[in-house]
């Protein structure tokens, strides 16, 4: 990309080493390794059932891979759980939307501030001054995110009542509220129309550019992926078949075969 980046792409921040995951006899991921550099936009692509979402679930600790390790900032993490990863500064969105449906947009985003909330329930019950101070800070940050995502007008609506595209935005907002260094986005643009997709791309690039947040995203729309990501890793049948810049990946014969099919 031609423009000057505020946050230069740096050293590997997340490394996935030889991960294998199977469900019973079905192998979802086989011996897969790749890395994510600090401040980059990294895409994971591949046909349906290639193991992309399973990969994110392994990184995030929802699935426990039978083999392989995940390292964060060069440090291998022995016992990954979603909670530990959140505390290390890794946040995510989900493929099938995992919002808190009966809570308002603002409350959903405020839950993302959980790790910046240090007061306990007793202090909250008594509404001590420090609780009010903390709540005020968290609310201010959440309002900032809400205006950044341009969803001010729906902030008090229960998310269950919102259309799909807006829910995806709220989910991104909740991930942003954690102030994480890495955000994993599982199909952030699935089911969106062209305009919504363009908006979402703009937000992803803006977050990456302004805050330097490292973005790892799974996406089906090849055009979008090639436009916004710095590097792309291609999975097929649970194996890496291509890894590199969009241009490299585009000219990779294996990738072309996987997407277009080969003559047998």
């Amino acid at each position, binding site marked *: 990309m031609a423009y000057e980046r505020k946050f230069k792409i740096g050293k590997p921040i997340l490394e996935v080493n030889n991960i294998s995951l199977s469900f019973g006899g079905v192998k979802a991921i086989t011996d897969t390794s790749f890395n994510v550099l600090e401040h980059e936009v990294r895409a994971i692509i591949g046909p349906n059932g290639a193991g992309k979402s399973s990969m994110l679930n392994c990184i*995030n600790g*929802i699935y426990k891979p039978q083999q392989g390790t995940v390292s964060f900032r060069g440090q291998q993490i022995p016992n990954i*759980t*979603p*909670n530990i*990863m*959140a*505390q290390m500064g890794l*946040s*995510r969105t*989900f493929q099938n939307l*995992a*919002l*808190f*449906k*009966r*809570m308002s947009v603002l*409350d959903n985003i*405020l*839950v*993302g*501030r*959980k*790790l910046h*909330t240090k*007061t306990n*329930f007793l202090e*909250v*019950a*008594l*509404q001590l001054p420090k*609780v*009010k101070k*903390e*709540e*005020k800070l*968290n609310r201010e940050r959440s309002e900032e995110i809400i205006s950044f995502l341009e969803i001010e007008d729906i902030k008090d609506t229960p998310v269950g009542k919102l259309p799909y595209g807006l829910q995806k935005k709220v989910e991104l907002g*909740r991930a942003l509220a*954690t102030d994480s260094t890495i955000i994993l986005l599982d199909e952030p643009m699935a089911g969106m129309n062209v305009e919504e997709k363009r908006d979402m791309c703009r937000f992803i690039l803006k977050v990456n550019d302004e805050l330097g947040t490292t973005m790892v995203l799974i996406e089906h729309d090849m055009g979008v992926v090639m436009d916004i990501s710095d590097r792309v890793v291609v999975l097929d049948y649970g194996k890496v078949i291509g890894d590199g810049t969009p241009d490299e990946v585009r000219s990779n014969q294996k990738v072309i075969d996987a997407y277009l099919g080969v003559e047998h």
Partner: protein
Amino acid sequence: MKPVFMTYTRKDLINLTVCMVLSVLIIPTFIKTEYWYTSILIPWLCLALATIGQQIVMGYTGQLALGAAGFMAAGAFAMFNLILRVPDLGFVGSLIVSGLIAAAFGILFGLPSLKVRGIYLMVATLASQFFIIWMIDKFGWFKNYDSSGIITAQDIVILGKPFTTPLAMYFVCLAVTTILTLLAMNMARGSTGRNWMAVRDMDIAAESMGVSLLRTKVQAFAISAFYCGVAGALFAFCYLKSLEPVAFDIKLSFKILFMCILGGLGTINGAFIGAAFILLFPVLLNAIGNNVFHGAIDATIISSIEQVIFGLLMIVFMIYEPLGMAKLWENLKQIIKLKLSSSRIKGAKSSALNK
């Protein structure tokens, strides 16, 4: 206007003032019959408090639990033993400590919620109901080796002053309930409540945001049991004025569950509405039986009819308004507001046309 608490809006403060004026000034001036205090207002406050406990674990945290009466029994018998054996603690101190003892049981019986959910958790929490009652029956120490089975509760003495008249006991219940309701509201609206609801709505996402499922669920069970324990102590000392394990059987647990669901899951005011409805409904039916049918209907039939109607109502609410009576009340207010504003617009229009 700067609100007293940040979490309270002006509307809340108005509601609070109205409730306080009503319960502190108007009720004591106009209601003189003891029956109202001893049979309706005091049990209402106690059961509403227990229902808030049930709301915290079921309405807010989404954990199906059925054992509120067990925790109430723990609170009540803890209170009896504390006053008997540690008199220095005083009434208020004993009340707090008995709540804490119930909370310890809550933690113990909340642990299964980490592994089982839904209807299976409900069955697992039933253990608390039966275990606590069994423990009190089995070990004579809890009842101070009283052979009669029913122990008279000690008189309530706060700061050397006895609180023995129905009105005085009503004020004791009112004070405790008000304070604990405000605290519950603060928690429900603050970060604590958000964690509870996040676990209820989508636990995997909550965990990915750094909410610990273990801590949040166990915390909800502990706080819930604390509320039930305090409610149980008040129930025994102000309403029953005696202690017997049978008073805290599974039927009471179900009653609290019904109050919670009919009142509206996930609301604090629903606890009060639900408790009032379930307590007043039998009274109303009896009054109808006596005054309309002049005793032609047998009392046992009336109580059967009561069960039938409760059952029907549960089904109807589950299908048509899962958010309960609190939601109906909100809707009603909304409709009245709309009617008022539309009539105002009409009035403005007609006056404009007349000019």
